């Protein structure tokens, strides 16, 4: 099967490989896997809490070329988007951009799942932080 030029480009020069501090409350981490091939993908976003805009994104994928290209492309797209815009990214957008053949669609699904997982993780962290802050404020009544 021939990979498209865009896939090869992302595969040979992956953008944004690496990781962000997992415990930072502004960082969301998504770790997903495709059991049918055993591939795994980790994708992280860092959100500016003031603006709600993603200012950094990193990934690390152990998988096929299409999975690497899909996650690399996803991190490029994520930067500069708001959290809600990020959730609107569909795997079909990735398929179109990279001209993935039908057998490689699940690789793009993996990337979409990773984005969702990362954003959900971020949101969960934020609500926990908000709750602790609220609880602390309650615990210390203002005089």
């Amino acid at each position, binding site marked *: 099967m021939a990979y498209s030029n865009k896939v090869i480009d992302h595969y040979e020069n992956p953008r944004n490989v690496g990781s962000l501090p997992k415990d930072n409350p502004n960082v969301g981490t998504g*770790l997903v896997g495709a059991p049918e091939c055993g591939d795994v993908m980790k994708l992280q976003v860092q959100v500016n809490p003031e603006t709600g805009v993603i200012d950094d994104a990193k990934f690390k994928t152990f998988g096929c070329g299409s999975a690497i290209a899909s996650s690399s492309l996803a991190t490029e797209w994520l930067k500069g988007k708001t959290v809600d815009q990020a959730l609107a990214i569909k795997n079909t957008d990735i398929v179109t951009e990279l001209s993935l053949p039908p057998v490689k669609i699940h690789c793009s*699904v*993996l990337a979409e799942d990773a984005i969702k997982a990362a954003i959900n993780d971020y949101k969960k962290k934020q609500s926990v932080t908000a709750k602790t802050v609220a609880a602390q404020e309650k615990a210390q009544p203002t005089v």
Partner: protein
Amino acid sequence: MISETTAPTIQECRWCGAGAPADASFCPQCTKILPLPRRRDYFTFLGVPRRLNIDPADLEQRFRDRSRQFHPDYFYNAPLAERRASLERSSYLNDAYRTLKQPIARIAYLLELEGALTPADKAAGAGATKVVPPGLLEEVFALNEELDEVRDLRSGGASKDEWTARLQRARQPIEDKRAEHERRIAEVSRQWDALLGRPAGDAERAGVLQALGELMLERNYITNLLAGIERELSQ
């Protein structure tokens, strides 16, 4: 509601119109070979219940008996339709035996048959990421990173002993996991078989099938990881 495990109990002989038991291969009336029934499954075809623990000797005996009965050589002079029935039965029989003979293929087939994991699901990977326990994904990820480091070590000129030792250390927990996983599969398989022996609710059956399906997905990761380690070790 008709339970999925109850296959139809009767078929009609297309030659003489007599009724025949669903798992019969020859019409009890006119003795002609029956065409493959439209609704069929490997278990019924081999005359065994939909259980996961199957006696291999018994299964093999059933396979041999049937393969003799259906053998196309016996139908050499028969009319075309009967020849075709013999060919179809022989090839279906081979598929059935090959599948039911292996415990893992048997589970996969059962899941498909019970509609718990359709081939379409597998192709789309739909929902698959959700059911694999996150802990396992983390281990898979960490081990892949370890393999990456071993490759770096090797290309950096480290001695074979050094990186082999690391791979062996990495392999141990996965081997343990596989052993544990096999125990779980055996246990849930026994649960399924026990359900067949008594009237069980759909929810209970679905629960066991779901557990089996999840175990099968996990299995892919474990198998892959071990294959990855083997690949590095053989460098």
